[in-house]
């Protein structure tokens, strides 16, 4: 048993009222344990593996009553997740980068089958070339697969969001993905408040869908359909997605009443009041932006942060309301879509198109491939944006 494993073994015996030191990945494993899934198919991949290790450790200690399945690839992992979920039980898995890409075909299948699987993804560069740095291109390239997508900034937020994601996914019958950045969150040891099991049980009732695969009941799933049936099915999925932004707000509020911790719902506004420049970003960079915003505010500059927690569905109406009347918006993208630039930049431009008092939107490719972005770098990006005309395409910045 390694040092961290020993630490956690002792943690279990202690009252959960004081924070415990753990990594972002172990926080995900704790969230999964507290959510009581029945089936966890999973395949190891750097930097996700500690999630899997911790879950198997919980299971061997008799603290995690799930069937852990270890198939030969991530494609088979998702192929195991879908029928397990359709059989009417809660399902959790975790992956990263290449593993997520290997699941791609079945990610579409999962949302089409309305399987509310919850999956953690550790944002890591995609090959080629091979690397392990934080970069969100892996999950952003899955944006059209019909999965709800959350991006988290800290171990605490990852734990809380995973539990919230089960509530949301199971209400709308769509799968949900929670992503956090490699190393800066996945491998960062930091204080985490672990909620009590009875708190989570109260928040997250047992999953009991109206329809499930049941040999005693005649229903059909995944059949060949007519054009009209397919069309209506996609409309149903869209209607389910449309419920998610408000649900994300409600569920976060309810979580705050229960635990005292809120993460802002679909979007978090940090020091945006009266801001003439708002930085918009996702994931771990939000923490660094907070430091930059505080320093700029201290220097008399009205700068704020709008953190996008929920990226799919993109909370378009809330974004439009939050940014209307702001003079300048600076989007920081830790991802790269060749030929487009920054995914969030382009989606935000589309979301804001046509509003009155539309801001000038600057898009910077910052931190792509894990390139370091410090608070000083961010202050420099702000100066640069303030001194230049926005461009339609994203700009490389470091």
């Amino acid at each position: 048993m390694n040092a961290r494993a020993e630490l956690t073994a002792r943690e279990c015996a202690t009252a959960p009222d004081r924070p415990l030191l753990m990594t972002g990945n172990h926080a995900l494993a704790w969230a999964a344990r507290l959510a009581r899934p029945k089936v966890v198919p999973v395949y190891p991949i750097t930097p996700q593996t500690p999630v899997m290790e911790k879950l198997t450790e919980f299971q061997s200690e008799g603290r995690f009553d799930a069937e852990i399945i270890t198939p030969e690839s991530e494609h088979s992992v998702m192929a195991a997740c879908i029928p397990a979920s359709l059989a009417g039980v809660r399902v959790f898995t975790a992956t990263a980068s290449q593993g997520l890409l290997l699941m791609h075909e079945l990610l579409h299948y999962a949302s089409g089958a309305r399987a509310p699987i919850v999956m953690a993804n550790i944002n890591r560069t995609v090959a080629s070339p091979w690397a392990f740095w934080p970069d969100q291109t892996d999950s952003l390239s899955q944006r059209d697969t019909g999965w709800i997508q959350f991006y988290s900034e800290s171990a605490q937020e990852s734990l809380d969001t995973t539990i919230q994601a089960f509530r949301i996914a199971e209400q709308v019958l769509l799968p949900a993905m929670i992503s956090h950045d490699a190393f800066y969150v996945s491998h960062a040891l930091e204080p985490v408040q672990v909620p009590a099991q009875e708190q989570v049980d109260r928040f997250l009732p047992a999953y009991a869908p109206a329809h499930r695969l049941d040999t005693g009941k005649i229903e059909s799933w995944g059949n060949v359909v007519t054009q009209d049936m397919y069309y209506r099915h996609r409309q149903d999925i869209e209607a389910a997605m449309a419920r998610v932004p408000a649900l994300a707000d409600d569920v976060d509020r309810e979580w705050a009443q229960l635990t005292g911790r809120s993460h802002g719902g679909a979007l978090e506004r940090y020091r945006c009041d009266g801001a003439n420049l708002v930085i918009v970003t996702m994931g771990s960079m939000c923490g660094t932006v907070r430091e930059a915003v505080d320093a700029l505010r201290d220097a008399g500059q009205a700068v704020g942060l709008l953190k996008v927690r929920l990226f799919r569905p993109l909370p378009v109406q809330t974004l439009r309301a939050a940014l209307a009347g702001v003079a300048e918006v600076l989007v920081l993208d830790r991802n790269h879509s060749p030929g487009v630039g920054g995914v969030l930049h382009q989606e935000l431009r589309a979301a804001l198109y046509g509003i009155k008092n539309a801001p000038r939107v600057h898009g910077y490719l910052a931190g792509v491939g894990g390139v370091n972005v410090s608070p000083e770098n961010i202050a420099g990006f702000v100066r640069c944006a303030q001194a230049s005309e926005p461009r339609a395409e994203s700009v490389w910045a470091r």
Partner: protein
Amino acid sequence: MLQIMIQGRGGQGAQTAGDLLAMAFFAAGRQVQAFSSYGGARRGTPVNSYIRVDDRPIRVRCDIDSADAILCFDASLLEGSLLATARADTPIVVNSSRTAADFGRTLPGYRVIPVDGIAISRRNGLGRIVNSALLGAFARALEAPALDVMVRTLNEQAPKLHDENVAACREGYRCIDVQLAGAKNE
């Protein structure tokens, strides 16, 4: 905020040392963040461990450009990128049998504090596992965390050889205590 860099080669224990140091500061009531980054996850390649310590929750998530203190597991790493994070007053505790005066000649302008971690570890029955000796030395150079907290953390976290790890930590601490007292008297 106190910002600390630990650098070693894959397999030497820099990541574990960073975690242990963060656990000790946390046990002393401080807020901490510790994370590592490594290029190839291979033995022998440089591994950086970053530790931040503060009295309020730590939000910043980036590498450390300017370290308040450095712990280096291998003197061959004391060059370019690691030294670029050091200021003139940054204590650099390095695992080496060379003397402070020797480093003063080869690396002028840096505050290098050598400790022979391997010799201490061998004397205490730990072979080439130098974490505990180096953490004791580093705690003395930093004057934090307190030796008893560092020792308690090692005792709790060591998977085996508890007494040996505690003894190596104390010897590392004493070693730097004597060295710094000597430097003061000169």
